[in-house]
């Protein structure tokens, strides 16, 4: 019924997308190798370590998954906000808010083991929603730039959290700045003793599925995407832009906050953060790599966790300085995220095809 080859431009674009990724990976690896050549006595061995490090032991492989859990939450959260065209950077603050708000609840003894973490996570989610929601409401009602307000709210979250924890929940016997211990009933047990693989990973996977279904299978998600892709089209079609924009950011904040609580309940026995954790920033990077689609978040997260673990292994087993390892890590990520690579070439190909069609009439 349809002519399958009706849009040659789409074919050209598809071809360039594949080419782009292939070239990006190759370039990233070449640059990594050149950097290693300049600092390492055994560049080939070190390159192999960097490429396959996480697979060299079960322990290392498990450590990689420890890094995955929190990033699933922040990655999906940022995807949701970016899909709606909202450059909200408060996932960082929301994650942190989730961590400190669940602390006093987690310290309470005598709550049933099954219920306790659920209460913590719900409270943390609400705190995260508030943190991401404030810039959203300010943007819709007062036209405040979300980029600026969300950046600033991260500091509100950080210092409010530190103030509350250190002044009201601090355990003087801990020997360092930290809260009282969490009740055992609140903590998320690890499935293995090699690394902290806790139920949060499972919930994270559910968050990915939830994010994908919400964004691509529901009317709400449709509204979100239309607003993100073309706000004026959304308006003209009768979508309630303001309400949708606020709701999606509340939801994203909830996910990031919930992730924050699961991270502390799974990884630690007390609240011991002294600064922002970078999980929100990583979420931004993941959303960019995943092109705002939650379905791709696991791949982006595993890629990131893999590169980080590989870098850890490399810096522990070789003489390559940590700084160089970090540079290699950053270079690889930059190339994968590069979007306009080859765009001039692509444009020429499209122009040539269009001209050929003009000649044909």
């Amino acid at each position, binding site marked *: *019924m*349809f*002519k*399958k080859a*009706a*849009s040659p*431009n*789409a074919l050209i674009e598809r071809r360039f997308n594949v080419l782009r990724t292939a070239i990006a990976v190759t370039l990233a690896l070449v640059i990594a190798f050149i950097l290693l050549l300049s600092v390492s006595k055994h560049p080939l061995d070190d390159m192999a370590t960097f490429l396959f490090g996480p697979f060299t032991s079960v322990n290392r492989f498990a450590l990689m998954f420890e890094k995955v859990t929190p990033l699933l939450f922040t990655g999906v959260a940022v995807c949701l906000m970016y899909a709606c065209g909202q450059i909200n950077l408060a996932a960082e603050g929301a994650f942190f808010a989730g961590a400190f708000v669940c602390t006093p609840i987690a310290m309470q003894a005598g709550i049933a083991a099954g219920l306790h973490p659920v209460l913590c996570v719900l409270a943390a989610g609400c705190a995260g929603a508030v943190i991401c929601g404030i810039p959203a409401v300010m943007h819709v009602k007062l036209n405040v730039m979300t980029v600026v307000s969300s950046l600033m709210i991260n500091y509100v979250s950080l210092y409010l959290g530190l103030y509350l924890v250190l002044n009201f929940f601090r355990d003087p016997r801990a020997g360092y700045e930290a809260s009282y211990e969490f009740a055992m009933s609140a903590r998320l047990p690890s499935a293995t003793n090699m690394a902290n693989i806790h139920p949060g990973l499972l919930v994270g996977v559910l968050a990915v599925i939830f994010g994908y279904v919400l964004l691509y*299978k*529901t*009317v*709400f998600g*449709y*509204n979100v*995407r*239309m607003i993100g*892709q*073309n706000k*004026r*089209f*959304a*308006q*003209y*079609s*009768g*979508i*309630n832009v303001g309400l949708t924009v606020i709701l999606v950011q509340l939801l994203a904040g909830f996910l990031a906050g919930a992730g924050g609580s699961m991270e502390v309940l799974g990884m630690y026995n007390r609240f011991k953060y002294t600064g922002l954790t970078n999980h929100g920033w990583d979420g931004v990077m993941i959303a960019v790599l995943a092109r705002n689609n939650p379905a791709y978040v696991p791949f982006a997260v595993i890629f990131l966790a893999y590169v980080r673990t590989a870098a850890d292994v490399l810096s522990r087993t070789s003489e390559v300085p940590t700084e160089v390892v970090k540079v290699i890590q950053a270079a690889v990520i930059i190339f994968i995220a590069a979007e306009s690579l080859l*765009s001039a070439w*692509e*444009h*020429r190909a*499209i*122009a040539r*095809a*269009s*001209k050929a069609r*003009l000649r044909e009439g």
Partner: protein
Amino acid sequence: MEKRTLVDDTPLGGEALSMQHITKIYSNGFVANNDVTFAVRKGEIHGLVGENGAGKTTLMKALFGQEQTDGGRVLIGGREVKIESPQMALEYGIGMVHQHFMLVQSLTVAESMTLGAEPRRFGALYDFKKAVEMTRAISEKYELPIDPHKRIRDLSVGYKQRVEILKILLRGAKVLLMDEPTAVLTPQETKELFVQLKNLRDRGYTIVFISHKLHEVKEICDRITVLRRGRVIGAAEISEVSEGGIARMMVGRDVYLNIEKSEANPGKPALSVKGVSYRDASGAKALDNVSFDVREGEILGVAGVEGNGQAELSELIAGLLKLQEGDITINGKSIRDMSIGRIRQSGLSLIHEDRMTYGTNAVATVAENIISDRRHKPEYQSRGFLRRKAITEKVTALIDEFRVKCDGPDAETRTLSGGNIQKVVAAREFSSEPKALLAGHPTRGIDVGASELVRNKIVELRDKQRTAVLLISADLSEILSLSDSIIVLYNGRVAARFPDVSAVDETILGEYMLGVKTQEVQSSPEGKDGDANV
């Protein structure tokens, strides 16, 4: 201060610059300029004329180095040059004043004038005094007085434009590209601008004047080049062409309209506009006490040269602009306090004139574009989940019915041609059983086949659904062949009403469109049938 450019080497009346065989294709495959050849003589005001979307601005942006072309060459003073940036264009003596000014509101006039070429002290510090001096000198030289200390935000639109003109003169421009300079001006400001432009021409400057306002072109230009759909239709001395002649070149009469249409059988009013006035952000009156009814089963055509209030009228009806004075009702209900979603639910369908920004979401699929107004209806969703199978089925049927050439419901809309994108818009807007349809330039910039389909579907809606259609178009042959009755907008007012379309022709409409004639119209909403005197 004065530097010589290639333009200076050209004798007065010689070819100052020419663009040859220019082709510009955007990354979505849209051909904005197709083998355009365009030449300007030194010391003339050259009108670059055409409808919106004809490719005028793109061509000038290419000349100013803001767009890179995909073929063709540019000659200045007979020598081939490659202009890759506005900076380079200015070095060749070409300056551009954009339709939307490129000014920083918080800077002073002197700072704005020297932005990008700041006078410096000790090589590093900004020399404000010198900037003020330079501003004074240039404004005196060209007799365009301006206060160098005033902030841009405190200037009227006319003075902001003056800053832009002086700025490029200061940078040594000998050729001024003016992109629809009068679009934002009041009639008095326009008059003043024309005096200034003629003054500059008499000093040997060359001006390219982009416009679609025929009387202005006729008044100020020495020669014109007409563009249509990215191609050059022709160039002429202004004395050789009439306004009507230019209009014919702009909109084209070569399209044979094949519309089968029976006599209308109008019922009660479905869409009413009552005493609507609207002032735009700059305070200019875009609409002045406009009233009319569109009845069930009737197509009311709104004729007029673009920029006479049509855009504001359609955005007010759509709910994209807030009503200021007067009221608009759909089936008797006022839309004053309705959201756009509510307006659509009360039975209004809209074809927005800007189909790439409002009409469609280019990066979404055809299916996603078609369900945008009906996503919440039970046929398309249950409990908040999209019913994918039902959507695919319904969209596939619409693709067939409207003969949209695409890879199927999941094809990305931007990969379609302009005509097919408009068919997607039509498929959505015509299939929602509308009580009233607002069709803004429904066939602009699309091919003959698509135009014919859209026009026939409009007539079908009128007959089968008894939809009240408000047709806004700059294409007179479209207005005359589709409408049952016609109103003419001129300067934001209803200049004429023709209840019977058979009593008018292009000449009569043209006179009202260009403001040569006006009917004395009492703007009461009921007065519509009584006061037409054809």
